[in-house]
């Protein structure tokens, strides 16, 4: 059975469709909450909350498709992205270096939120109706996942602290995963597991780098990373 045929039955009006829709909207709100905050521990909390909602969304699709692989991924998302990464970031970086308030913002919070609103509107306009078929849940979720990706990218651009950039990238990754489960259900399990492994390895290496930078620089913030310019 082709991937699209699998999700074709997941219509926007079915109970699973409504739940997935709700999960997507909550994820978008978490991304906005992250964009509207400047406390390091809040970034991590909002990212963790977004990941837990994503695991819930993956579980909804897993129930709908009776897909064991997707169940495993939902569990992994909950345990690693929802709990492990937020805990690790908090324990090894934020608490260890007593980081409180992100002062290296390139724009004010309100302008970031307005930019974010524009990007969300753009995502809805850019993803044309009918791209993946009418009345599918994907039709509503795909623009939201695109908006989450764009908001993550915005976080990386307007926040210059390395931790904020790390969280921004993770939000982008959540957006990609949301788009994936809504449109094609999932990649083959081996590939999806590999993607997960890469993510975990990337986060571990990033935490090591940020901690190395934090030890050597006062703020570990991108404006201080200016030695390599030409």
């Amino acid at each position: 059975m082709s991937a699209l045929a699998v999700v074709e039955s997941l219509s926007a009006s079915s109970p699973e469709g409504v739940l997935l829709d709700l999960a997507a909207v909550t994820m978008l709100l978490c991304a906005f909450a992250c964009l509207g905050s400047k406390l390091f521990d809040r970034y991590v909390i909002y990212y963790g909350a977004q990941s837990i909602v994503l695991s819930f969304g993956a579980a909804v699709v897993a129930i709908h498709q009776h897909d064991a692989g997707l169940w495993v991924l939902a569990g992994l998302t909950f345990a690693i992205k929802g709990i492990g990464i937020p805990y690790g970031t908090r324990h090894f970086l934020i608490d260890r270096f007593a980081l409180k308030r992100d002062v290296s913002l390139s724009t004010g919070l309100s302008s970031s939120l307005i930019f974010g609103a524009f990007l969300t509107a753009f995502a809805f306009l850019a993803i044309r109706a009918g791209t993946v078929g009418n009345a599918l849940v994907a039709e509503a979720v795909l623009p939201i996942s695109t908006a989450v990706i764009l908001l993550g990218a915005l976080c990386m651009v307007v926040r210059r602290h390395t931790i904020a950039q790390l969280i921004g990238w993770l939000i982008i990754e959540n957006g990609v995963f949301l788009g994936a489960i809504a449109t094609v259900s999932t990649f083959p399990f081996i590939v999806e597991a590999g993607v997960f492994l890469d993510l975990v390895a990337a986060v571990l290496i990033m935490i090591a780098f940020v901690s190395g930078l934090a030890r050597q620089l006062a703020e570990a913030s991108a404006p201080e990373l200016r030695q390599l310019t030409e």
Partner: protein
Amino acid sequence: MRILALIVVLLPLLPALATALSARARPLGTVSVVSGLATLAVAIVLTVHVGGGRRVHGLSGFLYLDPLSGFFLATIALVVALASVGSAAYVRAEEDRGELSPLQVRLYFIFFAIFASMMLASFETGSLGLLWVLIEASTLASCVLVGLEGKPRSLEAAWKYIIISSFGVTIALVGTLFLYLAASQIPGSPTEHLTWSYLFAHAAGLHAESLRLAFLLALIGYGTKVGLAPMHTWLPDAHSEAPSPASAMLSAALLNTGMYAIIRFQALTHAELGTHYAARILLIFGFASVIIGALFIVLRGNYKRLFAYSSVEHMGIISIALGFGGVLGLYGALLHTLTHAIGKAVLFLTSGDLVLRYRTRLIDDVRGVLKVTPLTGAVLLLAALAVAGSPPFGLFLSEFTIVRAGLARSSVVLVAALLVLLAIVFVALVGAVAQMVLGGFPDRPTDGPAYREPSARVLAGTPLVAGMVLLLLLGLWIPGGLDRLIMHSIHAIS
């Protein structure tokens, strides 16, 4: 052959295993040399097997080797072998000077091994999803090498590299997702919908709109890894801060891994979208890269950054060749991939000798290399001439082929623009290197011999001489086996 395909991925991991027994550069370097050369030998056997047009299949399409995979496998295995020999000498010298702690020596060999293994594995998979996973894994391993020295500069370069590359590669994942979506209309299982050979056989049935988006996103995503402008910003920093043998691997191997993924995606677009769509985009990114590369080469400053911008320029040339297309364009692109890989591996390995000897990366502070260290000086000058496209070296032949392809299939204006840019690069690159190589002894004292022991000197010199001999041979004569391999590779993707 399936066993050999597994062995070629496992062999580079030997030094990583050896770190459990020792943290000294000398024994680990020896294991690295042995494993690098053995990997090259096995890769050549595999390449000869698939070179005649045969395929190796297995594991539901997750294992797949065709002539194109064989070509890249042999090219990268050659770079791994050269860099392994270079590593053995370089890390020993750094350890002797107390620049690297036992932990750093261990980390170097572990992540060098994983980096090489993941890159080689990426040419052996038929799944475009797994290809993404392996390319991202090789990025992560190489990031650790870039940040290995742990100084603020190297950590900064490593941070920029990991954050920009991870962001870029995430875009490539979205591209892969759209390809998967484009394939949902054709019959087959989910695994087959990501299997390149299956998709290529059913390319005419792919959904055009999704495919268009898939190629664009894959090009931007993998293009970030390749260092195509304007996504190249991580590249000069990472190349200049990594230990030199790792820089050689980044420039001569990693960039080609990204290019390999782009070639696979491009081949899928032809049946449904025609050749013009992908060609036009590749030409735009290609010319942008050559222009950016040329501009920054003219600026000079740091010689490792100079060589890094030369890589941006050469990746642009390969993109342009893919954009010109046709048998001649693809032939030029593949030959250039091989010749550039050898030339750039040699250049970065010589830069390692300079770093050890002069303890500076600034062009203006390096003088009289030919007098201070004659072999390195001679190879540096010859390699710079080769990389700048001078005859009688291999890069002249490949660039000449690309120009012929442009004249046959594209506009004269584009070819003329390319030639002007190449001329600018030639003058700037050779001028900068000549300034370092020629002239009297340097004003500031050098740091003593780069390598204290004669055996380390031999180890450091071997890849330089071997690389230059290969470059010269490829400029004078293309062996029949290589010619057949390239022709079969072109056939596999057209």
